[in-house]
């Protein structure tokens, strides 16, 4: 059972990809991509977890208390910011697609134009 959180990250990743592949709408596709990326948060935080440890914040607990890894938490923070920027750019692109083609269905955009 000790590998379950990692398997969960793999599961979220594959389900997110399934959503991307079968998507009928660009906004839905962006949400699925964000979900796919969120699997990396689960993976990073699961790797850094230490049994019976607190958060790496020593405001209330004495220094030397067993704490989870602060480096992966900082990486997760970076990850979330990158995910948000990607989502914002892709949503802006989705608006342009809707304006130019009048549809948000990726399957309806089979031909290149412009």
């Amino acid at each position, binding site marked *: 059972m*000790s*590998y*379950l*959180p*990692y*398997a969960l*990250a*793999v*599961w979220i*990743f*594959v389900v997110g*990809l*399934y959503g991307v*592949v*079968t998507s009928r709408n660009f906004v839905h596709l962006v949400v699925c991509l964000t979900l796919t990326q969120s699997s990396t948060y689960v*993976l990073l935080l*699961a*790797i*850094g*977890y*230490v*049994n019976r440890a607190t*958060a*790496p*914040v*020593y*405001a209330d607990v004495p*220094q*030397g208390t067993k*704490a*989870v*890894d*602060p*480096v*992966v*938490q*900082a990486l997760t*923070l*970076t990850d*979330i*910011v*990158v995910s*948000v*920027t*990607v989502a*914002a*750019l892709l*949503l*802006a*692109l989705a*608006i*342009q697609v809707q304006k130019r083609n009048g549809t948000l269905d990726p*399957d309806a955009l089979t031909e290149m134009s412009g």
Partner: protein
Amino acid sequence: MTRQLRIGLFAVSASGLAALLLWAVAGLPDFGHYRQRYGLLLQQVAVGERHATNVVTAVVFDYRGFDTLGEELILFASVIGVALLLREVRDEAARLRDRMRSDAVGLIGIGFAAGLLVLGLYVIAHGPITPGGGFQGGVVVAAAFAIAYLAGDYRAYRRLTPQPALDFVEGVGAGGYAVVGIVSMLLGSAYLYNFGPLGEPGTLASAGSISILNIAVALEVSAAFVLLFTEFLEELSVMRAQGR
């Protein structure tokens, strides 16, 4: 490629990918038994060296501060990208005119916005001490402005967030971070090396330049998110005006 073929291809390749990923994670240390080395070292030295009781903030703004410069600039570039993608000649008369008529919603919204603003500033200010910091607090502050739009009307939102002020705040946030690094160099140490009075750990005036970088990021993040809201709301107003 037909849809059935695509899904079939995905089913085969995804199961292969899932198998490989599961094989890979099986080689990781048991959950909860991470043999942290870098992290453990940081936990031991962060409070003593940097007077920051939140080790995550110390990692983000100090030990790996250079990474955060890149992270902040990604957000900056993304806002520029969205603004470029959604640019167009916007007619002032086409601005969203629908107005929230309900006084109850307006009043509750203002209450929420005020509360969120205070919460955001609290989270920013206590970044080096308790969980939080410029990124998290900046998003909360930006959310307060989004609530102001929901509770009021679009023109009130724009009056609250004038474009020149937003551009200025975002620029100061992004540029300020880089400038703090240069100040470190002028003081004779490495780029972004922590300088300045470290103060008493656990107080607001602690952690030296971590606090300055924290505020720079907070300015950048809150302005960037409000700019993103504004771009998308502008788009909505144009679409509404054209009756779509």
